[in-house]
């Protein structure tokens, strides 16, 4: 035990004193510009974003010319594995080794973690795939933008659309009992009440761990409501939908699914047919969208892009434009340029980088999921039933809870 202390202790003192010096400052204005796409490469969100998101970002860089301010632009894909801890370590590492932008962060917990890192490192983070409206609310910060959708937008679009009709006034909701579910319930209730509707009842079920929704589905059916709202996500949505169909509830009630993506329907088309959802973009919505989707399909073996992948392309292009305009990648300057700027591209119609809370607003689309027989070509699952203008789709600035400190 004597050895334990003497020799290593001497070394300890020597090394400790040398290690407290600051690391050498990295030259900030030369070398390649890096974009870190932090996404789920192999888990539940891999089809929604994942490798497709990395590819879309690369496409944006290439279409921009591959370089900006005379420096080449590199795209790095980082797997966050749906682990906020890992994501934050990797984000820190990415920023410290030269990344100027963190993009995607599909998964709300990851998005919030990386937003925190972005604030500390004074570098920009654009969240496309996370849902939490806290990103532009209680957890807003100077360096984070929320690009694609959030829980409020989903509620304001789907909820308003269905409740506006005479056969969509009374609702019953099945809600997972955690932050996401509770937020969806709050937002949806407000949205349908604005249209003269009423949430007749809701069931908050234990999350995680519930796979059987039979009693809840029956309760919903017996409530006599016109609409059933499923405010869950992932496997829960699949399970509850499967059981909704099993009990034949979709024959008497309209089914509104809070959160669903093209990739989900690709995996399980029969389960989701007949439900109404909201998306921020659809590859077949118009000629411009289709043109881009064709380019994507060529690189991704015929797969069609989801709205998140399109958002990544769009955000990258807009960011590169901003960098070019201000002549630097310094986050403060780029953020100053982006705030309150309006723009339009194939993804965002009527787009604006809201300066009040860093919510990027644009049109949203309420769509029906078509049954297989009505689908005219592979992946053409959606039929747009309403377009919601940006002013109505997103939480009004006046109601934002963001404590703006920039």
């Amino acid at each position: 035990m004597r050895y334990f202390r003497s020799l290593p202790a001497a070394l300890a003192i020597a090394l400790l004193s040398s290690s407290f010096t600051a690391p050498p400052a990295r030259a900030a204005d030369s070398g390649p510009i890096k974009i870190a796409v932090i996404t789920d490469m192999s888990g539940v969100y891999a089809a929604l974003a994942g490798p497709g998101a990395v590819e879309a970002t690369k496409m944006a860089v290439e279409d921009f010319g591959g370089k900006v301010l005379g420096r080449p632009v590199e795209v790095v894909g980082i797997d966050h594995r749906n682990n906020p801890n890992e994501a934050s370590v990797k984000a820190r590492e990415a920023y410290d080794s030269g990344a100027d932008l963190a993009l995607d962060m599909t998964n709300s917990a990851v998005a919030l973690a990386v937003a925190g890192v972005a604030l500390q490192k004074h570098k920009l983070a654009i969240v496309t795939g996370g849902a939490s409206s806290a990103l532009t609310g209680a957890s807003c910060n100077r360096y984070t933008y929320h690009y694609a959708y959030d829980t409020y937008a989903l509620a304001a679009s789907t909820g308003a659309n269905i409740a506006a009709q005479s056969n969509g006034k009374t609702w019953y909701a099945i809600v997972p009992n955690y932050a996401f579910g509770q937020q969806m319930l709050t937002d949806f209730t407000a949205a349908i009440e604005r249209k003269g509707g009423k949430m007749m009842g809701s069931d908050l079920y234990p999350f995680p761990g519930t796979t059987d929704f039979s009693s809840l589905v029956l309760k919903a059916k017996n409530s006599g409501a016109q609409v059933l709202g499923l405010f869950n996500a992932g496997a829960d949505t699949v399970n509850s939908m499967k059981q909704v169909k099993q009990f034949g509830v979709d024959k008497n009630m309209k089914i509104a699914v809070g959160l669903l993506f093209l990739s989900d329907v690709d995996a399980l088309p029969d389960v989701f047919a007949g439900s109404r959802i909201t998306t921020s973009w659809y590859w077949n919505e118009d000629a411009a969208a289709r043109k881009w989707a064709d380019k994507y399909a060529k690189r991704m073996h015929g797969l069609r892009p989801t709205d998140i992948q399109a958002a990544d392309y769009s955000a990258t292009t807009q960011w590169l434009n901003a960098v070019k305009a201000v002549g630097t990648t310094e986050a403060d300057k780029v953020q100053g340029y982006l705030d309150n700027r309006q723009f339009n591209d194939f993804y965002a119609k009527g787009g604006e980088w809201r300066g009040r809370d860093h919510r990027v607003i644009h049109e949203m689309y309420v769509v029906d999921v078509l049954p297989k027989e009505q689908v005219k070509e592979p992946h053409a699952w959606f039929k747009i039933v309403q377009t919601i203008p940006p002013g109505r789709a997103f939480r009004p600035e006046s109601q934002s809870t963001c404590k703006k400190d920039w």
Partner: protein
Amino acid sequence: MLRIVNFAHGAMFMLGAFVAYYGLAALHLPFYAALLVAPIVVGAFGLLIEVLFLRRLYGLDPLYGLLFTFALVLILEDAVRLAFGALGSPYPPVLGLDFTVNLFAAPFPAYRLFVIAFAIVVCLAAWYVLERTPVGARIRAATEAPVIVRALGIDTQRLVSITFAVGIALAGLAGVLAAPNQNVEPAMGDRIIINTFAIVVIGGLGSIGGSVLTGFALGLLQTLGAVWFPAFNDTIIFMLMIVVLLIRPSGLFGNPASAK
């Protein structure tokens, strides 16, 4: 019964569902056939694991068996995810059972009635074999007093292997039954394994009847609980588990002699 804490039991359940899915998607294996094929496939796989790996760990601290099965879960779930994706694989409702019956003025899917009936039959069969047949008697004896049984000339190792394989096969069977109801995804076993432990502990280690009854009771409790007291639904099963472990560690129906 075998004093093996098998963390991979949930993964076997998941495998059963995937065998059913793959059978249908690639080989047009209908559901009813899958009810037979999947347990055989999964049971055989379980037997392989037992013979190749678990056997080496019997004499040791049960810790190692537990840890090995824990590692097995990681491997199996990831392998299935690589093969089939993480989102879920479609399994359609079963032909012939895709209608509802009006029971107590509520619609009741015929498929669920089928599952209930089928499960009861299988559980009764398992109980009968174990409690009322010579083979069952030998298996029970082999787990309670292996040395004596071996002295009688009975190959306890073979009994253990077969019992284990059958247990795994039953998990696979449960997976097939779950496939039309639930999302067939790699993580589906993860969700139920902890609850399964609780059920076995509460019902009584070593008691098949206990496990079955507790399983049914807890299933009922959870479904009703979802409506009556949702906030505590998750925690009830664990509180019960703690209470039982303290008051009657061998479980409600278990044999006190098998409590370590």
